Structure formats: structure tokens, C-alpha cells
């Protein structure tokens, strides 16, 4: 027992001698990670406990978090963010799965074509896309949504001009955009599913839907988990769409989100401590949701 520690030290030293050089390869990336990600996160945590302004700040404990809990605008931003994330993530994953499933049976050329087709819009500037959606959901009759609905005798609706409909318009703008990244990932994952399971199902006379429901969807759980985590984090970070479509928070703060509020609190109101506290809340939310998703969707199946 007394010799265990020196033996561990010796083996560690031996491992360092043998593999230490390999850490050099990791060093550049790790350094960038530390400087541009880890340190800002730590600094954000520190700032969240201060009444920091541009001139500096003092330690105030959890006072910023108490302020947030009592601030109706933050509570509204929190609610809007959660609602947006819930609806949009569910819709985008479903949509990506359906579209990937529809193009899966097609030939290789068609496959490549559709993957590219759905992925290409992602290279567009998010600002430009948001400006297009702003025009689509314009309250005036010449907005595209109102023009289209007018053909079937509906509307015109106020959309982004109304506090009741503005968040719906923002959510619709996200839901109606086919998530190209999800389609590509699902499509790639589907291509690597074991064929013998489908052959066995065919022998059993399973329908297309049964095979999709009982083989495809369960085997795609690792991809679904990945998309769920990524899309949730992206949805929590909603900013430019709201900023462009509704001039920030929209009528009566109807579309205000946490990141929008962080931006205005830090850069317009100069309250860096309070803004950092909001960022910490957002971080905890994203971490919590990711942990829950990992636990509930963890799959032991490897293929």
C-alpha cells in the first residue's frame, strides 16, 4: 500500500515520457479554447457576481440574480425563449427526420442533389434571411404571408405588428425553414443503418411505416440526441431573427429573448454584471436541458 503512490507517479512519468510530445499537437487548439472560450466563461461568471459597469464593479454576491428574478422583462424573455426553443426544436427535428426519410429511398444522384438543395440555404446570411421573413410577415396587405392567405380569403393579419402574433411569426419563420443540417445528418445516418434488420422486417411483412417507426427512428437516437442538443442550444441563443424581424423585442416586448436582453443590458444600458448574470442563467439552462436530453435519449445500441 505504501508503495502504490510512488508506483503511480512512476507510471505517470513513464507515460508522459512516452506520449508527452503528443500534447504538443493539442496545444494550439487547446490554447485557443482556453483564451477565447474558457476564460470568457470564467470571466462571465465572475462578472455575474459584480455590479460591473464599464468603469468597473464591486462584488455584490447573488444580487444580480435576485434582480433578474424580480424583473418582469427578464421573466418574459425567459418564457419567450423557452416557448420558442420547445416549438422550434421539436418542429425542426421532426421536419428534418421526415425530409431525410423521404429522400432516403431515392437514387444516389437524387440523394446528393437534395442534400445540397436543403443544405445550401444555410450558407445565406442570417440577417438577410431574417429580413426576408420580416417582409413575409409584414402587417400590411403586401406582406407575402398576407398576400398568400388573402387568396384563400384569410387575413390580413398583423403578424409582427401585434404583440399577440409577433412571436408566432418569429416561430413560424423558424419552423417553415427546412433544417438543412439536420436533413444531411439524418440522411447520412440512415445510409449507415444495418440492412439486415430491414430484410428481416421485409420477411415478416412489415409495412414501410412500421419499418420506419420500429427500426429507423430508434436506431437514429444518437443522431437525434446530437441534433436535439445542438438545436436546443441554438434556439436558446435566438437573437438576430428577433432583432431584425421585430426591431428588438417587438411590440410590448412580445418577442424579447434572453440573448436580446443580454445585448441591450450590456451594450445599451451598460450593465455588464447584470447581463453576465443573464448569460449564466442561459448557460445553466442549456447545460440542464442537455443533461436531461443525454440521460433520456442515451442509447446503448451501436451500429
Amino acid at each position, binding site marked *: 500500500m505504501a508503495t502504490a503512490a510512488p508506483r503511480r507517479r512512476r507510471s505517470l512519468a513513464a507515460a508522459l515520457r512516452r506520449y508527452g510530445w503528443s500534447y504538443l499537437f493539442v496545444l494550439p487548439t487547446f490554447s485557443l479554447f482556453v483564451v477565447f472560450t474558457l476564460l470568457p466563461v470564467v470571466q462571465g461568471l465572475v462578472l455575474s457576481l459584480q455590479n460591473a459597469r464599464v468603469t468597473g464593479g464591486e462584488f455584490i454576491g447573488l444580487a444580480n440574480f435576485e434582480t433578474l428574478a424580480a424583473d418582469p422583462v427578464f421573466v418574459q424573455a425567459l418564457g419567450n425563449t423557452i416557448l420558442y426553443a420547445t416549438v422550434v426544436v421539436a418542429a425542426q427535428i421532426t421536419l428534418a427526420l421526415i425530409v431525410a426519410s423521404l429522400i432516403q429511398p431515392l437514387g444516389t444522384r437524387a440523394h446528393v442533389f437534395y442534400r445540397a438543395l436543403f443544405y445550401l440555404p444555410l450558407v445565406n446570411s442570417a440577417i438577410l434571411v431574417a429580413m426576408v421573413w420580416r417582409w413575409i410577415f409584414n402587417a400590411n396587405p403586401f406582406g407575402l404571408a398576407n398576400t398568400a392567405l388573402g387568396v384563400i380569403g384569410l387575413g390580413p393579419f398583423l403578424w409582427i405588428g401585434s404583440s399577440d402574433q409577433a412571436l408566432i411569426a418569429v416561430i413560424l419563420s423558424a419552423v417553415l425553414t427546412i433544417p438543412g443540417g439536420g436533413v444531411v445528418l439524418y440522411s447520412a445516418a440512415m445510409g449507415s443503418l444495418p440492412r439486415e434488420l430491414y430484410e428481416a422486417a421485409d420477411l415478416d411483412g412489415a409495412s414501410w411505416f412500421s419499418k420506419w417507426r420500429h427500426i429507423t427512428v430508434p436506431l437514429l437516437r444518437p443522431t437525434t440526441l446530437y441534433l436535439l442538443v445542438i438545436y436546443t442550444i441554438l434556439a436558446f441563443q435566438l437573437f438576430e431573427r428577433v432583432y431584425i424581424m421585430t*426591431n428588438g423585442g417587438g*411590440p410590448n416586448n412580445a418577442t424579447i429573448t434572453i440573448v436580446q436582453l443580454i445585448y441591450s443590458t450590456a*451594450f*445599451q444600458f451598460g*450593465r455588464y454584471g447584470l447581463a453576465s448574470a443573464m448569460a449564466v442563467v442561459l448557460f445553466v439552462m442549456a447545460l440542464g436541458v442537455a443533461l436531461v436530453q443525454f440521460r433520456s435519449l442515451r442509447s446503448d445500441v451501436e451500429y
Partner: protein
Amino acid sequence: MGRDVLINRRRFLQSMAAVGVVVACGPTATASPSPSVSASGSPAPKAVSIEWWRRNYAQGTQSAETITSDAAVKAYKDRASNVTIAIQGGPFGAETDQKFDIAILQAHNGPDVFHTTGGDVLKYAAAGQLSQPTLTDAERTDFNPSALKATTYKGTVVAYPLWIVPWFEYINLDLFKEAGVTPPTGGNWTYEEFLAAAKKLTFKRADGKQIYGFAHANDEFAFMLIDGGRPYDSTIKTWTFNSADAVSGLEKWVSLAQQKVMPPDFLTLNPNDSQARFLAGDVAILQRPSAMINILNADAKWKFGTNWDIANFPKAKGDQTAWGGVGFIAVREQSDADKKAAAHAFAKYLTGPDIGPDLKKQTPPVEYWLAPAGRKSAAGIYGDYHPAKAKVATMGAFTYVLPNVSTWSEIDQKYLRPARDAALEGKKTPKQALDEVAPQAQKLLDEANK
């Protein structure tokens, strides 16, 4: 002979040491400047370089801020040839504001003289970063009192008022004619006359095109002032924008929404959108600041007095009111006395009566400034350029300039605008909406007064 002129190493070092002692004991260049003597025998002014930070300045571009700033520096060079001025810019917006904050508040460095607005003046003053102007009594009475008040921090004027930017009504005379509405005589109308005109001016043409009587951008609260309501009391310590006068002003505004004389998306119309609607002939009356005069002038289809004019805010229970913003030229506190003195002299020039005529003399003449001056002696030049501007130049007398409160943008954006929206959408009564936000606004006002 040769021995006499030779300097050995020891003597050389001795002489260098002597020079060193003299230099060390002598006056330093920065601590007490000693003017050099010119060929004529009179002391030549010492050369000084200062930095002027100006929002929306971008060297080589044709923005109004760039053209007028370059022209101002050129004109000042003729008056003070020893002063070299470098201009730094940055687009309007939060990023440039932050650049100013970091330089002035954190680094205690950056501009020697700068253009600033709103609550920033008080923020910098509170941090002890502004060098106070020394104004004579004559200068004090020359400045617009509300502009001077807006730049007063704890009883002291901390910057030079530059200009007042009034908001008023632009009217499309063609649409007035089409709807059979007589434009307000002399630009004056009561709220009732304004509402009646806006209703008549809201109509659909035979081709289906909808015209709206009135529009404004989503950054306004002017109607809350017309019955005499004001955001704060005279001491700027108590929030009063839920007073009976403010509530009745908001009720008048709500009435416009209820009568549907504004475009349905009026709550999300940003300033550019609202101007575009007027320029497209979709809106008959538009509430915007004086800068839009230049936009209309630049468009050949708009002829002042023929198809557009300006009018005052509608008058209600309160006195004739306009509302506006105010711009300042501030000098940063610093230890370099020469730079500070040069910065003050330049700031006085920028806000004084000489710059306008100086710029007018340039080839081509440069219009100075972009908004009516903050002092009487400099007011004329703005009005000289355009008959619309001549009308606007008279508005300073009744323009309400929001007193500077460092937390105003937070009060406005986070609480006041949503409350206003809720009332305009009919979700809350004006009184309910304004009463609800009063505690938060008061809290932020208290914080600003600490």
C-alpha cells in the same frame, strides 16, 4: 594649437554631465509650455495636436457628418493654424458608444474633444472625465435654456450645447389636396383639427392603394407631452409620466390608433421604414426630426411648398410643444493643459456663431450644421439654407428637450415603450399602462440620481 581643440574622453563626459544637469533642472515641455519666439518677435502659438471623435464620421465618404466635420476642421485651421485636428469616427450604434465608453471611462484616454448625446454626458461627468466649459454670462444667456439644462450635472454645465433636433410633422400636400383637406394655417393646428385631418387623409384609392393619414417611427412618445405631461419633475428626481396630463396625452395617441389613421404595423415601423412610407406617398403626415428635410431636398420629385411642407405638433391642453434631442460637444479632462485648452477653443468654435459663416464661404459652400443650433447667435445660419429650415429654426423656443438621465435608455426601452405599446394596442388603459411602469422607472431614476 591642436592640443587646445582636442577634447579627451574625460572632458567630454564632464560636459555631457553638465548638459544633463541643466536639462534635468530646466522646465519640461509639457509642464509649463514656453512659447517660442517668431521672426517678428511675438510669441508664436505652440503647435498642438488634438483628436476629435465624431459619430458617423468615415473619412472619404459623403455622409453629412463627414462632409461637415472635414469642413469644420479645414475652417478652424484658418483661425488657429497651430492646432492640428485628427478626426476619428464610428457608425451610430452600440459598438461606437462602447468604443467611447472604453476610451473615456476605462482607459482615460482617447478623444480630446468629442460629440456626444443624451445620458452619455452625465455618465462621463459622473466619472469625472469631462473638463468643464468656462462660459461667460453672455454665452449662458445665448444658449437655449433647455439645452443648457440638459448638459448640467450637479449644478454645473459640463459640455457645450451644440444643437437641438426638433421633431415635427411633415405633410404631403398632394395627398391633402387629393383628400380635400386644407393644410394647417401657418403650420398650427389643434389636436382635434389634426385628428380630423388624419381621418380624412386615411382613404383607399380606386386602384386599391391604401393611404394613411399619419405615421411615426417606433421610438416616439411625443403625444404624451402635448397636454403638458413630462417624464420627470423639474428637479429630475420624481417620475411623472403617469400624471393626469401624461395619461390624457397618451389617450390622444391611443385615439389615433383606435381611429385606424396609422398603418397597421405602426408599432414596428423603424425610422427608415416610416420615412420610406412618406417618400412613397403612402402616408400624408409623418412625424420625424429635422434631418429629413435634407432627404426630401435630395429627391427631385419633392418640392417644398408645392408637394410638401412642415407643421407643428398639434396643440392640446399644454403650450405649443415640440420635442427633440440635443447634441453636445464635450472636452475630456486630462493633464495636458495645452491639449485641453486647444480642445476647449475648438469646442467653442464648433458650437459658436462663427463656424456657420466660415463654412458657407468654402468652395463649394458646406451647409452647417445638420440641425438648429443650441444658441441664439448661431441660429440664423441653419435657417438660411432652406425655407423649411427657417421654420424649424423657430421651433427651438418650444422644443422640450429631455433632461439627461443616465438610465433613460433603460427606462425608455425596457419599460416605457412596452407600456406605450400595450396602451396603443388596447391591451391596457393608458393610466393602467403608465401606472404599472412608474415604480420601475422611478427606481432607475433614483439610481441615476445617486
